[in-house]
């Protein structure tokens, strides 16, 4: 066979075409920005003419590197200490997310606990809420006297004044981020556990293995890739979370990399910010490498085969009711109670006063009063709220469609060519955007696409640019979902169809996708919800005319117009749940992939 023939034969396979296209597109959309980021650490930016004396914008300089790493005490405060804080907070929140999400996932998928549908749906709420709103809820509850103002609800109800470490700083930041991201763990780990063939457990039982041993030697190894994926996702997300540390850390001046990143990117020294972003990417790459080393080491984790699989639930017996009650209470506490406080706070006129006379519908349906918030109308009568909401929804739908579809195809191609170099490259490229801190990613796209670039016209200010960055940023969710779905699926299913001469498109739409429908659909859902509540990614790219609901929400929060903010937050959750219900009715799938049902 000549080379050309071999190439022709090779290229005939759909998975190869997909890989080639993805390599080209993703290189352009992720590697080029990375190089541009590196370049940005070496040049003088327009706002730095004040600090880099006697320079012009665009000059080459080592100033940023020297300041960030080698300037003694100043570097320590600017970089090293925030870096340490970031690592601590990210580790802690990953741990919380995995333990909590994993435990709930196990209880829901492998035991006969009651109220599964309820738990499964409600447990996802913290992820739907923009993360900093949970931080606001934390402050509503656990604020102590440090910042003055009305005491927190806990103090008001019980008289207990939380110590400052409990109210502000590393502890609440870790807990809030952990809670916010535990649905990740729940979805990823639960997705694997749900499909796990109980024959494995039963075989072990027959061999008289103890429960603990089964959990440790069978369940854990099977979910290990999911745990590692979760760790990678939660760690990276926590590392690039900005608003939560800004709200919970600022009062005690607890600095993390992102708060420094934000200050420098939006202030006088973007060069520092680009270096910090680079550091965050390097850390992320390190974790990715560990992840890969582990996944590469193990043999296989197919859980869905052509054979019948048997799922049986662990009988909790006497513990069934108490555990159910406890879990329901826990879920209500972390997912419903904050919503209730938002609801109540959105109707309150003077802060901290809960008498009926102090309730008002002004912030929902009022025309606006000059003396409060400068006459801002209630959100239901507010033009900018509607405009921003509409932008958010169409953006999220567009991003979900693009990212979800590409992710599913990528998953297919990567798994079908597993073991080849190309497969590994695409696998890494499709995950790489996740490691780019959102705010820095936004900053790079801004500088790349603000002017015409390689035949692409200037995209700044267009809706297309927002869709593009959203789709790239959330591709990792979709491609992970696609890969997980495909990895569980034994190749024999498709091979049977190939032998029968079924064309590729039909194999996908009739066999692969229907079997793993819920996994693939989660590749659409995660980008959708993430997008609905994403802030940092878009904050630099939106022009005022196409701003999204979260930028408006943060603006209200930052101004201290909390009633409007709380009302908007509730609306976001209601809209996402509405979407979830509609899609659930239509397709039978849902955000939590129907893990509980």
């Amino acid at each position, binding site marked *: 066979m000549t080379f050309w023939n071999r190439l022709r034969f090779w290229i005939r396979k759909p998975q190869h075409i997909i890989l080639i296209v993805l390599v080209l597109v993703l290189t352009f959309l992720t590697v080029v920005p990375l190089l541009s980021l590196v370049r940005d650490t070496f040049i003088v930016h*327009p*706002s730095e*003419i*004040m*600090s880099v004396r006697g320079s012009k914008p665009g000059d080459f300089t080592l100033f940023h590197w020297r300041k960030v790493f080698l300037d003694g*005490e*100043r570097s320590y*405060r*600017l970089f090293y*200490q*925030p870096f340490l804080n970031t690592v601590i907070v990210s580790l802690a929140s990953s741990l919380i997310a995995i333990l909590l999400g994993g435990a709930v996932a196990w209880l829901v998928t492998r035991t006969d606990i009651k109220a599964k549908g309820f738990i499964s749906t409600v447990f996802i709420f913290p992820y739907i809420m923009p993360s900093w709103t949970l931080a606001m809820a934390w402050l509503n509850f656990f604020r102590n*006297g*440090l*910042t*003055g*103002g*009305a005491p927190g609800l806990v103090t008001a109800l019980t008289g207990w004044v939380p110590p400052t470490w409990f109210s502000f700083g590393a502890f609440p930041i870790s807990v809030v981020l952990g809670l916010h991201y535990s649905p990740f763990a729940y979805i990823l780990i639960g997705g694997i556990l749900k499909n796990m063939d109980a024959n494995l457990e039963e075989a072990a039982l027959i061999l008289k293995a103890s429960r603990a041993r089964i959990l440790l030697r069978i369940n854990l190894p099977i979910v290990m890739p999911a745990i590692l994926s979760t760790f990678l996702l939660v760690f990276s997300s926590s590392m690039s979370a900005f608003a939560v540390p*800004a709200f919970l850390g*600022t*009062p*005690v*001046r607890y*600095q993390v990399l992102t*708060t420094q990143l*934000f*200050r420098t990117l*939006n*202030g*006088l*020294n973007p060069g520092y910010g680009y270096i910090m972003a680079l550091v965050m990417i390097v850390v992320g790459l390190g974790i990715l490498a560990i992840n890969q080393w582990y996944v590469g080491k193990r043999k296989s984790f197919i859980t869905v085969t052509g054979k019948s699989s048997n799922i049986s639930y662990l009988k909790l017996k006497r513990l069934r009711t108490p555990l159910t009650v406890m879990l329901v209470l826990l879920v209500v506490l972390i997912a419903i109670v904050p919503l209730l406080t938002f609801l109540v706070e959105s109707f309150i*006129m*003077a*802060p*901290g*006063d809960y008498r009926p006379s102090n309730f008002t519908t002004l912030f929902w349906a009022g025309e606006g*009063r*000059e*003396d*409060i*918030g*400068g*006459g*801002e109308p209630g959100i239901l009568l507010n033009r900018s709220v509607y405009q921003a909401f509409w932008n958010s929804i169409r953006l999220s739908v567009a991003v979900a469609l693009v990212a979800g579809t590409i992710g599913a195809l990528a998953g297919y191609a990567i798994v079908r060519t597993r073991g080849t170099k190309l497969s590994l490259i695409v696998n890494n490229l499709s995950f790489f955007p996740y490691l780019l801190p959102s705010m820095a990613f936004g900053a790079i796209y*801004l500088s790349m696409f*603000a002017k015409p670039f390689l035949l692409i016209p*200037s995209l*700044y*200010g267009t809706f297309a640019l927002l869709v593009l960055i959203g789709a790239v940023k959330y591709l990792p969710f979709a491609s992970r979902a696609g890969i997980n779905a495909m990895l569980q699926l034994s190749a024999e299913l498709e091979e049977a169809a190939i032998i029968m001469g079924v064309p590729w498109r039909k194999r996908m739409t009739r066999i692969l996708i229907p079997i793993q429908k819920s996994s693939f659909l989660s590749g659409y859902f995660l980008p959708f919800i993430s997008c609905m509540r994403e802030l940092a990614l878009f904050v*630099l790219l939106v*022009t*005022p*005319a196409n*701003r999204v609901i979260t930028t408006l929400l943060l*603006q209200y*929060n*930052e*101004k*201290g*117009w*909390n009633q409007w903010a709380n009302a908007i937050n509730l609306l976001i959750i209601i809209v996402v749940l509405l979407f979830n219900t509609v899609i659930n009715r239509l397709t039978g799938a849902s955000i939590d992939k129907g893990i509980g049902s």
Partner: protein
Amino acid sequence: MRKVALFALLAAVLAILPAGAADQALIDAAKKEGKVVVYSITSRIANAAKAFESKYGIKVEAYNLKDGELIEKVSREVAGNIAGADFVICQDSGRVFGQLFAPGYLVNYVPDSMKQVIPAQYQNPLIFQFINKVFIYNNEKVQTPVIRNVWELTEPKWKGLVQFKDPKQEGVNANFLTMLTSPEWSAKLEKAYEEYYGKKLVLTTKNAGYEWIKRFFQNGLILGNSDTTISENVGIKGQPKTTLGLFVYSKTRYEATKNLALAPMPDVKPFAGFMYPAFIMMTKNAKNKNAAKLFIEYLLTPEGFSPWSKDVGSYSSNPNVPIDKDDFPVSYWEPRLVFEDPAYLFENRADVEEFVNTISAK
């Protein structure tokens, strides 16, 4: 003779015409454009926009941005020749002079009708209004000012009871701190220290300005994200200890509606807070030039400024705009507050920001 009479008549007619009425040609041209886009650091632009819309039938897209955000957006948009704002209301002298005025992204426009009205020193760049942040205390239990000298804030009795907006979040706050390190203000701070304690200040930093900043921050200063939240935290009733903050004076307008106890302390030595200008400028690539000019002119009139003038803490550059009955004119505040010096800020702001970042982390 007839000519002279005609002239006299013309002059009389001109005098009767209300000052600030826009020229008809401009109105027509503006109406033809039918729309104007403004980015503003003050949220009350929305109310002014509504009034302007109903007066002229010209649609206004008004966007409220934070100061740093506005600078970033405008420099990107104008540099890339992307249609964005037609004009802006911006603040932060430490940055706008170097980043927006010097490269020509923003263009000064003083309406003809305002050239004789607005004092010359406010015309280039044209100032829209002054805003002040002053020391404000919770007057629920004490009705007289609780401090007389800013050095008191560095004493243990005020530890953890003072609030200030995070200078990272808003440029004008960083400008204020920067100005304190200037020769003028560090000398005043040094003098105030000697007057209060009767002894010389022993420096651990470059000068008395840096010294005060350091001690102020290290005395458990609470940094907030929003002046509104700070005003609530300081002003809410029933707190065990009297609190105070350095925040936007106009937030005292919430006193009644939100049931807060807030009172300013205008006589603290050597300064009672700071005052900074907001500039009103057209963008170089403005699409709706005439509508922008018309709106700018309107905002400078008493009518256009009414969303701001009905409260304390906003001072139009137009001396004909009345000031709230409970407030004082800029001339009253001038000797009491720290003002921005763009040249000094440009040279020193980065250093002071770095200094603050170094001392303020826990």
